[in-house]
Structure formats: structure tokens, C-alpha cells
């Protein structure tokens, strides 16, 4: 008896419609929501095509499976997981192979799953709990017979073998999933100690401390405290097949607990070479399945979204800086805008995905990214950019600590805000490879223990 996967019919259609060159292999991601009893798959997207390199290699005569670029697949997974709102995550991978390679498919899937999990987990600022499911699904599809084999791998245990799982199709899996929303004000001063190479670690520490506060905070959903195992929506509205999607406003209440400082008689004083402040409002969303969801899981989903959206943006900003200026020493004095969050309707279901838009980008760029990452055409007018406003650059920066405010010259700030149009996700060969490599390197730098 393995895990149960309830899969939206639309995913079945997508998988069935995949065109692959005969004899070649293709991979892709499966996304949705996991719960202790079962998992819901609502989205599938193939790995974006990588030009030329792959084809060159195949002439060597090695197995097609060996040619699958693990780094590329995991990088795609990492980018896509940033686009998923709270409650949703990458559940696993699918692999399409010609019949003659089917017997080796499982090994490849195992390699991919473990690599992907490691990559996605690196940037995480919150801790997994015991209740978090560590099984990932692998779906092998034979390109000739269209036969599917579904198994799960436990990423907690590298030595474990794949277990069979249940793959069932259903219509409208997520149509009445409630959506939690909130806007969160962030104002986080982070001291920078040590040399400028230490910036990433300081930022990570600062964000992590803030993330702990959010995790420990009280969450109210529709005015009620979401503490325990009580059901999210009690009483009426248990009709699963309603088309109306409820929007549940969430509130987060925090306190400035700092257990590591509690026993001290004196203040903690750090000599810093500077400081960074993350300030602004983030708009957050999370979805929860409507199969008797518990209040505390809903609370967890929205809290994780809050933490993820802030850390993703900072991560993206630093990656962008790395690409465009070659090092982090490029972080200059003054105010620099972090990318804004925008939402777009998800393929097939009524859920939304998100993306981040740098100040010099437009909805056209977002649409392009959505096409590449999610394999889905989104009309530009469907992209909602109204939830977060563009940053205002104040001519007089607050004199926070007695500096001469004339140091913060307006023109300098405006200059900094014009961030280069970094080719984030283009599939130009050289650039794509560089990005993948650099991004991985950044993650290693940024989040390695």
C-alpha cells in the first residue's frame, strides 16, 4: 500500500499531448499539494528545451538517459518552485522514454529526484516538520505505448527503493480549494559584520531570524486563531464540488522573542561595516486542499509563503547582481528595489502562479518566462501586477543614525535602480549554461552550511 496521488484530468491531457522526438527522452515536473493522507497533482510542465548541446552529445552513441542534464532539470525545478504560491510545491518528476530505455528509467528518475530535492531545499529558511511528506513521485511514461508507471521515493532515505504508488485521475481537483491571502509588512535591519564576502551569510542569518519569528507567530484565519488540529472550515460549506473559491484573509501576530539574547545582562553590540535593511510590503497567497484541511496546516502554508517570497526575492536580486556585475561587491549604498510579485492564472486550474518582476521589466517579460518555465501561454492582460506597488525612491532617506544625509544623493540611487536587463531565463546556449552554473554557485555560496 503506497501513497495516493489524485491527479487533475488536465494534467493527463498535457502528458498525453507531449511531443517527443522518437527515440529521445524528455523530463518534466509535477506540482501540487501534499497532505499526510494523499497528494494532489494539479500541474505538469516539461523541462524547457536546451538548444544544440544535447543533440551534439547524442551523436556519441551513449544512452539518451545519460544525456539528461541533471543540473538543468534541477535548475528548472528550483525556478518553478519560486513560482508556486504557498501550499503548493514540486511533488516529483516525469520521464518519457522510448521502450528500449524503460528498464533504466527508474535509476535516472532516482538520480534526478535526489538532486532536485537537494537543490530546492538549499534556500529554505524554514524547517521541515515531522508531518511534512518526504516522498516524491516519479512517473515513467513509455513514449510508444503511453503506459505509465508511478512510484515514490523517500528523499529522507537515499538507500530506500522506490515504492509503488496510486495514480488516479479526477476532474476539477483544485477548483474549490480555498485561498488564503495577506499583505505583510517587512522592516528588517541586518547588520553586516566581517568582510564584504560575509554579506551573504549575514543576510541569511538576518532573514532566518525573521523567518523564525514568523513561524512562531499567531495566525488568524478569517478572524479565528489557527492553532491546532481543528478543521479550517467547520460547519457548512463542506460541499466539495462548489465552483466558488473562498478567499480567507489571514493575519499574523508576532512577538520579538529572541531566546539567544534572553539571558544577557547587557545589549549585544556588533561592530559592522554597514547594514542592510529589507523594507516594504509583500503580498502572500496560499492554497489549501478542501479535503477536511486542518487549520494549522493552512497557517503553515501561508507562513511559509511569507518567508519564501521574501527570501526568493533577495536571492534573485543577489543572483542578478552576480551575473551583471560579477560579484556582490556591487551592493551599493542607498535604496535598491527588490523584484515585485505578480500573479497569473495557472494552467488548467483556477489557481494562480506568481513571478517576480524587476523594475525595468514589463508584463511581456513575465509572459515570456511563464511560457518557458511552465510551458503555458499567458495573455499579458491576465497578469496581475496591481498587488504590489512600485517602490518609491524617497529623496530624503531617513537619517537613521546621524549620517550626513547628503551622502545619499538621488542620482546615485536612480542609477542603481536601473538594474541591467539580465537575461534570467533565456535559452541562448552559452548564457543558459552560465546562468545554471552561476545560480548553483550562488546557492552554494548563499546557503551552504
Amino acid at each position: 500500500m503506497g501513497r495516493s496521488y489524485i491527479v487533475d484530468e488536465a494534467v493527463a491531457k498535457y502528458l498525453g499531448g507531449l511531443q517527443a522526438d522518437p527515440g529521445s527522452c524528455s523530463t518534466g515536473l509535477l506540482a501540487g499539494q501534499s497532505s499526510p493522507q494523499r497528494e494532489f497533482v494539479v500541474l505538469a510542465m516539461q523541462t524547457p528545451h536546451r538548444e544544440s548541446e544535447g543533440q551534439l552529445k547524442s551523436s556519441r552513441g551513449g544512452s539518451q538517459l545519460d544525456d539528461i542534464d541533471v543540473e538543468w532539470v534541477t535548475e528548472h525545478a528550483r525556478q518553478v518552485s519560486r513560482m508556486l504560491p504557498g501550499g503548493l510545491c514540486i511533488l516529483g518528476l516525469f520521464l518519457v522514454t522510448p521502450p528500449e530505455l524503460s528498464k533504466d528509467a527508474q535509476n535516472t528518475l532516482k538520480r534526478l529526484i535526489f538532486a532536485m530535492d537537494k537543490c530546492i531545499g538549499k534556500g529554505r529558511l524554514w524547517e521541515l516538520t515531522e508531518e511534512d511528506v518526504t516522498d516524491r513521485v516519479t512517473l515513467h511514461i513509455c513514449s510508444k505505448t503511453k503506459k505509465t508507471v508511478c512510484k515514490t521515493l523517500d528523499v529522507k532515505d537515499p538507500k530506500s527503493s522506490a515504492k509503488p504508488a496510486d495514480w488516479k485521475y479526477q476532474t476539477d481537483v483544485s477548483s474549490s480549494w480555498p485561498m488564503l491571502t495577506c499583505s505583510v509588512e517587512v522592516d528588517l535591519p541586518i547588520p553586516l559584520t566581517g568582510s564584504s564576502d560575509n554579506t551573504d551569510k549575514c543576510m541569511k542569518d538576518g532573514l532566518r531570524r525573521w523567518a523564525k519569528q514568523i513561524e512562531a507567530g499567531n495566525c488568524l484565519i478569517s478572524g479565528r486563531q489557527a492553532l491546532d488540529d481543528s478543521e479550517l472550515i467547520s460547519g457548512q460549506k463542506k460541499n466539495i464540488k462548489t465552483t466558488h473559491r473562498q478567499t480567507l484573509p489571514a493575519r499574523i501576530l508576532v512577538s520579538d522573542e529572541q531566546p539567544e539574547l534572553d539571558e544577557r545582562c547587557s545589549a549585544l553590540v556588533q561592530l559592522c561595516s554597514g547594514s542592510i535593511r529589507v523594507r516594504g510590503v509583500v503580498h502572500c497567497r496560499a492554497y489549501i486542499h478542501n479535503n477536511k484541511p486542518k487549520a494549522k496546516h493552512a497557517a503553515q502554508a501561508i507562513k511559509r509563503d511569507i518567508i519564501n517570497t521574501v527570501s526568493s526575492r533577495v536571492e534573485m536580486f543577489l543572483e542578478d547582481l552576480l551575473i551583471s556585475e560579477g560579484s556582490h561587491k556591487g551592493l551599493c549604498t542607498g535604496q535598491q528595489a527588490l523584484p515585485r510579485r505578480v500573479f497569473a492564472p495557472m494552467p488548467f486550474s483556477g489557481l494562480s502562479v506568481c513571478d517576480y518582476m524587476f523594475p525595468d521589466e514589463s508584463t511581456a517579460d513575465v509572459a515570456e518566462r511563464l511560457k518557458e518555465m511552465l510551458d503555458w501561454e499567458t495573455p499579458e492582460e491576465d497578469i496581475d501586477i496591481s498587488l504590489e506597488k512600485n517602490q518609491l525612491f524617497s529623496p530624503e532617506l531617513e537619517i537613521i543614525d546621524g549620517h550626513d544625509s547628503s551622502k545619499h544623493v538621488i542620482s546615485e540611487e536612480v542609477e542603481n535602480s536601473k538594474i541591467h536587463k539580465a537575461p534570467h531565463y533565456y535559452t541562448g546556449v552559452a548564457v543558459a549554461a552560465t546562468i545554471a552554473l552561476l545560480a548553483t554557485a550562488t546557492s552554494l555560496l548563499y546557503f551552504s552550511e
Partner: protein
Amino acid sequence: MVYSEECAIIFRVKGILEFSCQLDNPNGSQSQSIISKSFQGLRSKVSSKSIVFTVCNSPILIWPNTGFRSSMESLTEASSCGDILQYIESDDGGSKKSIKKKDKKRSGPTVVNMKLLFEVTDPAGNEAPSLIQMSTQQHFVKMPLHLDCVVSVTTDESLTFVCTELVETLRKQLADMEEVVLRYRKGSSFLVPQPFHFRLPEPAGLTTVIYPAGVPDSQLQAIREDLHRKFELPSDRPYLRRANAFHFPDAAYKDGYLRNPHVHLNPPNIEDAKLYLVQGVYSYHHYMQDRVDDDGWGCAYRSLQTICSWFQQQGYVETAVPTHTQIQQALVDVGDKEPRFVGSRQWIGSIEVQAVLNQLLGVTSKILFVSQGSELATKGRELANHFQTEGTPIMIGGGVLAHTILGVAWSENTGQIRFLILDPHYTGGEDLQTITDKGWCGWKGPEFWDQNAYYNLCLPQRPKTI
């Protein structure tokens, strides 16, 4: 349950606010204004719409600065404080009720504990986030401020009034903390300000004082002198040492010892008698505690421990109550006993008690000798005077037993007397019911003493200090 107008409720709100600031030059002239500005920011935060009070052990949440919004529909601006009590679950459910009935008048005011939280959602703007970087060298200062504010009201007072008062009190506490921080700051070394509550004689009542952490009471003498003057307190006994802090009725004592079991007793019914009792707080020490089996020999040691606990809790000493070994060692140190005394099961008497109190606590004691137990009945006046002026527990040894006298009921006219005795020979657990029912703490008549034996009483004297 009967509500009366005098039924007081204490609302206590606790919370942590992080103080942080950045100083270019900690010794520069600008630093004071930077620190003050940070405190001003915290005061604004407390007055902002985003603060929330949660009422502990209840589902109630109150936003005090938004025209009183609460999470409970039945609680509105017009609600009185008494209304809030029905929503609060008491910590120990049923058992509390049985004691409540008996001790309603003794259990003191009800305490409503609240926690201070901040809402991070529902912000004023929706501007996407930015990174703001400063690249000048700075001292980044950070410390948690443990806020702890109390407001005492009657049950019919409105909830809105209480919330407004609490917010005001929080602001004032931040201002007091700012003062302490600035006064004790040396460059970039900041001492954490800590609030202490003291129940002072009326009209001052429950008062909060901020002391800097890490500075011992002995160095805060000048502050206490000022406050004694301000509140018109006697200048010969401590009221404002940290140990004198008010013990909230709902808080358990972490060390597990019973405090003042005698308050649960009914006084003896003697015509025309007045009560002269121990003042303040002591812990009940008796046989078998602390995993020491001193059954049969430790009674005087336990009485001495009770006395030491009194001096500690009234703020005269900061040292812990001594163990049997420490008591024995003290007697060796003063030359009263040979070194092999330590670790033995030898009895001690009043003279030894006097010596140890002097050696370990710096406390002097008077010795009262009676040649016959029957004579004790005639010592009413001395004992009454002692409890009135010193108010310390008395150790009495004689026959083969030692006890602690906590007070007398004495009639000046008829000479009738009863003794309030705390018996260290009790070997059971800290069960108040048993201790009071079975007379381990109880009123005894003159026949309690061995009429023919001689007795020595050790009467500890309060040091004249604040």
C-alpha cells in the same frame, strides 16, 4: 461566587520589544539623541494600530488602538472587566475551584495575564520591498526589552479604560527604561533594563521600578533611598530590593516550597486577645526535604532554614538557604565545632542557630532563656513585642525538640496566650491541606511545651537597612 465592589482585578501585560540602534561613535555627543530616538520609535509602535493584546488561556484578542476591536463579539467597548473572566480557563481546571471557595478572601485579587503582540499583516501601504544599504562603519546595538505592566481595577471598570491605561503604562515604562539605559550606559555598553513590581503601602499600591540587569542590589542603594523618600517609606527596612518584588497570586513558586502556610489557619478564639504574627514571607522547611533524611536529628537545622528563607525573601540577603552541610561548616568555621562535625547527625541548639545566622547572613539574634516550659506562658509581652518590631520567625529549642514560633495570640488583660507553631518534624510532601489539618502548622496552647524542661529561644533581629 459573590462579586463585590472591592473585588480587584490586576491586568498584567507582558511582552518583548527589541531595542536596536546604530551608533557611529558610541562616545560621541550624538549617540544619546540616537538612543532616545529609538525609544521614541518604540513608544510609537506601542501606540500604533498594530499592537494586539492576547488574553492568556482564552481565545480573546484585543486591538487596543483601533477603537477597541476584539476577536470576541460579545466583548465591546462597553464591556466591563468582569465580563472577561468567564472566557478565561484557569490553569488547573477543577482543583482551583475547591480552594477558591475556602480561601476567597485570602487568595487576593484575580490576575488576568495578557501578552503583547504585533500584527505584521494589514499594513498601511503596499509598496514592494527594497534593500536599503548603509556602508559606513557602525556599532549595531540590540537588546530585548521585557515589558511588564500592571493595572489594578475593580470588576466594574470598563475594558476600554483598562486597555487605554495599559497602553499608557507601556509607554511610560519605555520612558523609564530609556532613563535607566541612558544613566547606566558606558560608551557602547548598555545594561538591559528590567521591570520589578512592588506592593507598597497605600496610597502608592502596586508600583513598578526599573533596575539595570547585572547591577547588584548593594550598588543600587542610592536609587532605593530616593524612592523611599518619594514614597514615604520607612528608612530602616527593605521594600524595594529585587527579592521584595510582588509575588503574583497566580504564580507558583518554582522551588516547590510552601509559603506562609499559617495564613490558611483560623486564629484561636480567645477573648480580648490580639494577634502578633511574623511579617512578610517565609518558606516551610521540614524533615526529608531536598532528599536529605534528617528524620530524628535535623529539626533545629530545618527551623534555621525557615529563618534563613525569611531573610532571603525580605531582601536582606541574596544567598540561598543553607544546606545541613553548609550550616555545619559554618559552625566549624567560627570555631564552635570540630571539623568532624561536618557530615555528622549531631543536633544543634539556639546558640548554634544564633552563630550560623551571624556567620552566614550577618544577622544578630537575641537569646531568651526560660528555665521551665511552664514559664513560656508568661512571656507573652516579649514575644508580642518581638513580632511587632522585628517580625522574624523564632527558633525555640528545649527538651529534645526544636520548633519555629511564627506568632502569638495574647491578651494583655487576661494573660491568655496561644503559640503559632511551625513544626519541622513533618516528613510528608508539600501538601497544604495535610499540614494545616494535622497541625504541622497550627495554634498550640501553653501545654504544648514540656513543663519541666528548659528552653532557649533565638530571636533574630532585622538589620537596619533598606
